[in-house]
């Protein structure tokens, strides 16, 4: 991944320097030719949507946030009292089920985006509702799981393991909650035609966010739940 990214970037850089060295006064009006957009036109220099650029930047930034929380957990995952560690607490079949629910919601999100792109707002709204519902289900599962852990004696302040576990999954849960609020608000705004700007794009933006929350869970589920089985 990063390999091709580096070669690509270097290639671009070489071209840019070449272009620059050739003649700095050359009248080139094909702005940002290195990644001229699909849409052409000239009201943005790359022909890309501002909002979508912003969303991807935000998601890039979020990688560092979750990376920090995951690293904290990785450092502290073994620091707990004898009988309140992951091996005693995890209920893999249950968490697998809720994970599956969340992954499924990504699929319905894709369907919603594609419906919105076809301007099929009716179906888009239906799929968005299903997505929100599945998200809610996942969240309910997480809350249930937390209460089970709590009843077994694992509080937020019990150990380093518990603090970092609840912080990481809690942050993810908050992201899911925000996603659900965005989905519900979007459904409402679509119904009342109050989306300022483009409907399909709004759906796509929420979709990008939702998928990101989903892929973060893929990592969390693997490195926090499944990995404990190596021992």
């Amino acid at each position, binding site marked *: 991944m990063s390999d091709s990214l580096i070669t690509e970037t270097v290639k671009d850089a070489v071209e840019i320097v070449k272009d620059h060295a050739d003649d700095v006064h050359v009248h080139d009006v094909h702005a940002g030719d290195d*990644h001229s957009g699909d849409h052409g036109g000239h009201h943005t220099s*790359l022909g*890309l949507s501002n909002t979508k650029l912003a969303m991807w930047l935000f998601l890039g930034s979020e990688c560092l946030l979750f990376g920090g929380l*995951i*690293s904290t957990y990785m450092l502290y995952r073994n620091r707990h009292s004898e009988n309140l560690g992951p091996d005693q607490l995890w209920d893999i*079949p249950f968490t697998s089920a809720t994970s599956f629910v969340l992954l499924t919601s*990504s699929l319905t999100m*894709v369907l919603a985006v594609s419906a919105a792109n076809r301007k099929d707002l009716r179906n888009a709204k239906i799929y968005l509702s299903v997505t929100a519902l599945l998200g809610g289900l996942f969240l309910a599962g997480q809350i249930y799981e937390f209460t089970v852990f709590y009843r077994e004696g694992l509080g937020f302040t019990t150990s380093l393991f518990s603090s970092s576990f609840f912080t990481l999954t809690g942050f993810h849960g908050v992201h899911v909650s925000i996603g659900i609020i965005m989905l519900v608000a979007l459904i409402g705004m679509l119904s009342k035609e109050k989306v300022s700007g483009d409907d399909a794009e709004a759906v796509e933006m929420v979709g990008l966010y939702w*998928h990101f929350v989903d*892929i973060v869970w893929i990592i969390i589920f693997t490195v926090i739940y499944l990995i404990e089985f190596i021992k």
Partner: protein
Amino acid sequence: MAVSYIDIGPLFLPVLLGLMVVKFFMVVLYFMHIKFDNKLFGRLFYIGLGLAVFVYAAALSTFQFFAG
């Protein structure tokens, strides 16, 4: 998920992480349209992802090399 119940010994961790990476990029490339969209979106995201993997892996490894 069935994978969890098959004993494949020392291969377990790499297989698990491999599957995680595959699934991760499936979602990013297809669901999030990185594969079809303008390359710039992907690059911006991958810079963040790459930096995160690099700095945190490096930081965690300094705890491993801790030698007093």
